[in-house]
């Protein structure tokens, strides 16, 4: 692998093959700029001149009016009215003033680096990803000539013993538009949402899904799976209202497993104790305990109870908790602390798994006194559930509350 050309992210290039629009820089795994073969390397910035020196030596001559070439280039991008406005704006400011009043910004919103904003810097700027939608706005219907070309190609490539089926296949599979393939085969429209499930046609479910769709499970299969569910799973589905596939998609993790013994008159009876957490990765979390002499039974008990016990966990910005919370079960005392975006889950493994299941991504935790795994999980659950909602606090005190993070940047999150 050449290091000049970085490895490409698979996920970013799903819909790349058919795209014929302008090339979008891919996501980089390294900070150096992407080197494309068809694009000359960017000239390195001249060294030896700092911004300070530049600002001190600024002269009116440095601010030149647009050349003819530049104007011609601008004409491609702007309407004549816009161009007139730009020229009027340029003329309104005296180059002498520009040279005198040029300052290095010192305000808190200043940029920490020099940039002309004309290129995407992989290390600093947001990644520009390939579009997710199938839509191709440049797609056009084929003209008669295009169809004639297609037909000519078909004739020229026709096998010697051509049958009617060859002709039918050509007539059915020949495309009607020029542009992205997905745009024609699976167009996206908010006005006309998908009427059919993947693999379904107007005549009913088809056994052979279309080439374009890559779907492993059809609704028919899902219904079949539901019928084959065990008795316990059926009860769970009835209680929770989830389908078997939804239950399968939940995140469950067995955190504690130990053997326990009951001493009876007849002797010791061993059984397996299992503690499991379940969550949907988006704000629901539950813990379940199971105990049985048969380990698989205990496992299923624990998982199903965890799913049945799932409750919403309050999350701030869907990533961390509201303030610091404490929990105590037995001798385990722990403290969960909210953290800024991008902090990660810096906590011990049990709490990490619980946060993963609940969809919390920024948290810190301290477990004090005892560190019994079972009680740690219970205490962490207690702590997560004991969060106080700021809105409720504000209403209780009769105060108005505003989250300034939502107020800055016009209330936009990202």
């Amino acid at each position: 692998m050449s290091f000049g050309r970085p490895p490409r992210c698979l996920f970013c290039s799903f819909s790349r093959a058919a795209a014929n629009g302008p090339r979008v820089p891919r996501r980089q795994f390294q900070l150096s700029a992407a080197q494309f073969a068809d694009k000359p390397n960017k000239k390195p910035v001249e060294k030896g001149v700092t911004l300070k020196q530049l600002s001190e030596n600024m002269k009116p001559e440095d601010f030149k009016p647009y050349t003819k070439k530049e104007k011609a280039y601008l004409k491609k991008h702007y309407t004549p009215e816009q161009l007139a406005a730009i020229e009027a704006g340029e003329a309104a400011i005296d180059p002498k003033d520009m040279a005198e009043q040029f300052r290095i910004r010192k305000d808190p919103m200043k940029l920490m680096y020099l940039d002309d904003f004309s290129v995407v810097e992989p290390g600093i700027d947001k990644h520009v990803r390939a579009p997710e939608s199938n839509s191709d706005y440049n797609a056009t219907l084929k003209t008669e000539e295009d169809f004639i070309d297609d037909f000519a190609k078909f004739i020229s490539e026709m096998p010697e013993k051509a049958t009617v089926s060859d002709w039918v296949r050509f007539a059915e599979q020949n495309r009607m538009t020029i542009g992205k393939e997905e745009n024609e085969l699976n167009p996206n429209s908010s006005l006309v949402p998908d009427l059919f499930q993947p693999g379904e046609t107007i005549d009913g479910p088809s056994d052979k899904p279309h080439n374009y769709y890559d779907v492993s499970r059809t609704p028919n299969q899902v219904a079949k799976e539901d019928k084959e569910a065990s008795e316990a799973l059926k009860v769970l589905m009835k209680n929770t209202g989830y389908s078997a596939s939804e239950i399968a998609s939940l995140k469950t993790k067995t955190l504690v497993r130990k053997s326990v013994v009951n001493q009876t008159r007849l002797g010791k009876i061993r059984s397996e104790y299992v503690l499991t957490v379940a969550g949907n990765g988006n704000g629901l979390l539950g813990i379940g305990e199971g105990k049985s002499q048969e380990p698989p039974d205990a496992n299923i008990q624990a998982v199903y109870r965890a799913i049945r016990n799932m409750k919403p966990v309050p999350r701030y910005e869907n990533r961390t908790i509201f303030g610091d919370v404490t929990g105590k079960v037995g001798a385990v005392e722990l403290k969960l602390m909210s953290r800024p975006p991008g902090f990660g889950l810096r906590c011990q493994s049990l709490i990490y798994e619980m946060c993963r299941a609940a969809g919390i991504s920024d948290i810190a935790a301290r477990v004090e006194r005892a560190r019994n795994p079972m009680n740690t999980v219970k205490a962490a659950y207690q702590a997560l559930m004991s969060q106080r909602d700021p809105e409720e606090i504000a209403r209780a005190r009769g105060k108005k509350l505003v989250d300034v993070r939502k107020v800055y940047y016009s209330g936009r999150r990202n």
Partner: protein
Amino acid sequence: MSLVNLAHVCSHLNNATKARLGFTSIPNSNLHLKLCLALQNDGFISSVVRGGPEAPPMHNLLGIPTGHGEGYYVEPVTQINVASRRLWLGLKYWQSQPVLSKISMVSKPTRRLTIDVAGLREVVRGQKSGYIEGLRSPGESLYLSTDKGIKEARECVEKKLGGLVLCRVL
């Protein structure tokens, strides 16, 4: 300024809210009065009334002493009766939970803690400054005794005041 009495008040308020009392009384002093008014201003308690050893008349609808209303008479504080005055506080609850769930002393009678504006800025942002822990839980408040009276930590930062840290309220 007796912090011993203030510590007793804090404990008493904790006990009263845990017992879900509608109103309670604390000894009268200027420090207690100012702190209670600050708490009332921030919505932790519903009313503050200076009364005698007996509870002042209740509000007809609210069931707590509000200090005003029909036929209400305030006994003026004189040198004779000042020692028997008490502060009657109306406590608040929201969805079966006390609004003032925990009040604890930061300064102790044997160790008074003061803080300047720079330190207070850190505390308000949730960071520890000196011996004083940051305000990290939603709705957590810290009360300080300053030159301009008893104020909440955020108000002190706004007005650039430092002072003696009294208590932390959650």
